[in-house]
């Protein structure tokens, strides 16, 4: 790909910094004295996850999780599975799942179902971008950066055909 073609910048680098810093402060206040684990969902949440974790002024554990679709004998379409699991033990700990964007919520619902089986003390979701109008399943989204109604976005971890993740801002692309 020669260049990323985007229509306009939706959230600038400064806006993102400011919002991430505010979210970090909220989480610091809410989780003070609790054993906290941040789980970043690869690859979209990569930069949000690293910036947010540094904006939280608490001792915490970090880990990342990835999901993908793999072929399955019992399904013609394959099934969604965790392709990179959590390495640390989350049982009895307070977990926040960090997402870049929640649209229908099906992927996050699958993740939460899987993580809940490991008996964390609590599990919440923090997403940078959130579209509650499109969400099909009510998820415990405790923190979000911005409410959006656009789908085709790139930058700050989000991609277009796997490119554009390293843009420091979030832009709308043509579809």
């Amino acid at each position, binding site marked *: 790909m020669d260049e990323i073609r985007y229509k306009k910048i939706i959230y600038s680098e400064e806006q993102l910094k400011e919002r991430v810093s505010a979210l970090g402060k909220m989480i610091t206040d809410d989780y003070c004295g609790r054993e906290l684990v941040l789980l970043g969902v690869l690859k979209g949440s990569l930069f949000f996850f690293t910036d947010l974790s540094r904006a939280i002024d608490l001792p915490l554990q970090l880990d990342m999780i990835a999901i993908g679709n793999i072929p399955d004998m019992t399904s013609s*379409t394959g099934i969604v599975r965790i392709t990179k699991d959590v390495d640390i033990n989350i049982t009895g700990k307070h977990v926040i799942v960090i997402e870049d964007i929640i*649209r229908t919520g099906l992927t996050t619902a699958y993740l939460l179902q899987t993580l809940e089986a490991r008996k964390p003390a609590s599990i919440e979701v923090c997403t940078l971008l959130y579209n509650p109008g499109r969400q*099909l399943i009510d998820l415990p989204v405790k923190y979000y950066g911005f409410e959006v109604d656009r789908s085709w976005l790139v930058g700050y971890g989000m991609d277009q055909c796997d490119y554009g993740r390293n843009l420091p801002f979030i832009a709308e692309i043509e579809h």
Partner: protein
Amino acid sequence: MPIITISRQMGSLGDEVASALSSKLGWELITRDLLMERFFPDISQEQRTRLGESAKFYLSEYKDGISFRDVLADSLNTMSVEGSAILLGFGSQQLLSGNENTIHVRIIAPDETRLSRIEKQFHLPAEAAAELLSSTDRKHKRFVSHVFATDSTDETLYHLILNTGYMSVDECVAAIIATWKEHQLRVRIKAETKEEGAMNHQTEMPVFKNPSEAEFAKILDMYHIDWKYEPKTFPVEWDSEGNVTLAFSPDFYLPRFDTYLELTTMNQKYVTKKNRKLKKVLELYPGVHIKIVYKKDFLELAERLRSFGNE
């Protein structure tokens, strides 16, 4: 509260399945001896022995003109309301027949497998093991036949029959738990439906009205999200005689998230009509969560399904 009854052939590993199931679920395992102690604490040793030896004795009077069998059935039905348990043997599938809080399981194995297990377990020669197996099978059959006038080998008495000639104890336990969960969900939806004044619409198999619904079911499967197809119908308008004139049956119910989903892949005119109907449902049935899957979301999810499928 729930009860799982387990009927088993001798040498079928039924006791092992019941014990493993009890550990896995954390439910009490109730055997015949425990049941006698709990429900008939005041009987004499002679009565206890006769109950162990004679099926007919169960039909005799225990107290106040009520037979041992009927006291047992009443006590078990009361227990099914108060606590969860696994009942092993003594025709419990008959005692709790028709009780909605219960599923009935039978554990079997091929005769050759059972014989070989009995030979090993009791250190018996083949002939003696065969005799023991045959007499025990006869005794079990006679007991259920005399006490309940039915045949314990009748497949229609059970929700699930498992063959340990082909399945391990762990596999049987997993199958029983899966069956139990589905049964519990079916019963829950039925009860809720009655309470809400909606109509129970659970079918024996989903017949999708259009290809989009079938495709959406595949998407949910892909994400391991359990679903039921059109399990409830919500009446929204009635005529002066109380007959339902307008009703809404959301396409999918996601039990884990207590959410109904209605697919809308058609043009805007119908979407507006559907939204109006949905608004009425939400007014009439507060607390029911229904979401519309709009065409845009459906197409995006279907696209993801196709691209995954092609990988």
